[in-house]
């Protein structure tokens, strides 16, 4: 962290593009990729886009300092975000700062978790957030820079410097940026945010401290029952963090798999209940040493299996992606929650 962190405006020497990148890296501000310079003017444009959001922020762990709107905006500028993305970035941050998300634990852990950011509602399309083919991947400025801005905030304001206060053993590509939208238009089910009690016209950001997506490939099954066999056994991994630190997980069903489930009459509730019953890890897949360790810390098997969550309410179902027979499973850190926050927009619209 920079020694000059107690000064909001920094007066630095005139720097060309290359010198600026070197300077920013020296300050510890970079995720390894080039950064856009957070000039006063660019930060002011970002802040102006957030004037519908007037609430203060809690201190950000692990450094435990309270950000200002300008310092948050500076990170959004550096990430390459448009000003119009800023209210969405702030909603994601508010979710991450909810105590149930357990930011401090998820930053300090050796686990590879990163903030998963899923966007629902009309702003997805206005901002061109990818919800379809390659939605977890590269190619969309909104996905890339919204996810990256949140990561930079956690690095620079929160102090989550890799190897120092971010203690992840191996990290994850998801720590660069992990933002996608739900493919509401092609989903057979109600949008995720509506199922959580928000209005369809609300734009809502849902966050979870999760791993990068794990693929669920099933080209052969043509029934919901067949797909569930693949889903359940892919999800039931003895190496999941949640074998002992129980917590939520997200299943992002691809549109073709979703259509098969829907055709066979499986709604979200049925999917969740069946996963709860079937995505369980047989004890024979778990080492004796691990079983002893789990038992010593109060995590006992109730039968001939261990679960990876506390109940069906820990299993979250959404729909995203494009054509193809793939879905995804996103395990969580464990001691965390899935938090949804409505985006607060300026009265006039979506901002600059």
């Amino acid at each position, binding site marked *: 962290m920079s020694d000059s962190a107690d000064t909001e405006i920094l007066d630095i020497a005139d720097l060309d593009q290359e010198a600026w990148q070197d300077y920013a890296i020296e300050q510890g501000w970079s995720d390894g990729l080039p950064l856009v310079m957070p000039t006063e003017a660019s930060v002011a444009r970002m802040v102006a886009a957030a004037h519908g959001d007037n609430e203060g922020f809690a201190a950000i762990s692990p450094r435990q300092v*309270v950000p200002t709107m300008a310092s948050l905006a500076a990170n959004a500028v550096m990430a390459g975000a448009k000003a119009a993305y800023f209210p969405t970035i702030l909603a994601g941050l508010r979710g991450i700062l909810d105590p149930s998300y357990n930011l401090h634990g998820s930053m300090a852990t050796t686990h590879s978790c990163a903030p998963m950011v899923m966007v629902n509602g009309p702003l997805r399309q206005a901002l061109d957030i990818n919800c379809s083919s390659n939605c977890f991947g590269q190619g969309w400025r909104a996905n890339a820079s919204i996810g990256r801005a949140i990561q930079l905030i956690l690095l*620079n*304001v929160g102090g989550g410097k890799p190897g120092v206060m971010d203690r992840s053993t191996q990290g994850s590509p998801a720590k660069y940026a992990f933002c996608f939208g739900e493919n509401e238009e092609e989903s057979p089910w109600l949008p995720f945010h509506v199922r959580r009690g928000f209005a369809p016209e609300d734009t809502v950001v849902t966050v979870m401290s999760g791993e990068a997506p794990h693929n669920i490939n099933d080209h052969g099954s043509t029934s919901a029952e067949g797909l569930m066999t693949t889903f359940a056994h892919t999800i039931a991994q003895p190496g999941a963090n949640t074998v002992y630190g129980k917590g939520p997980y997200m299943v992002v069903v691809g549109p073709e798999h979703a259509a098969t489930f829907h055709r066979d009459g499986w709604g979200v509730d049925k999917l969740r209940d069946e996963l709860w019953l079937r995505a369980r890890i047989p004890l024979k897949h778990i080492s004796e040493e691990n079983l002893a360790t789990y038992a010593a810390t109060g995590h006992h098997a109730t039968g001939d299996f261990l679960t990876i969550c506390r109940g069906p309410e820990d299993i979250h179902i959404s729909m995203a992606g494009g054509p193809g027979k793939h879905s995804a499973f996103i395990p969580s850190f464990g001691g965390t929650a899935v938090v949804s926050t409505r985006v607060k927009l300026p009265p006039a619209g979506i901002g600059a």
Partner: protein
Amino acid sequence: MRIVNPGFGLTPAGAEQATEGKVDWLNDPIVLFGNSKPNARELLEGVKAKLAGIRRTDNIDFVAKNSASQGAPLEMINDAAKKYRIALLALGD
């Protein structure tokens, strides 16, 4: 040229450190506070063994929060603060 500091933040209200009273390292009660991972206990047992060479150990106790991923419950922290003058923490993995 002027830029906005992306690391800028304010110290939250009420974050002052407690500095009341002196600590007697040879006699005050100590809590050895672990994060519930197996190696934390090993580390703390090693600390207690070392302390045995320089001070009394009948008032040194072990406490572990029940989840490595969650913060210790406030009640547990408050109880420890009331009972002990010194806390040594171990984050084993």
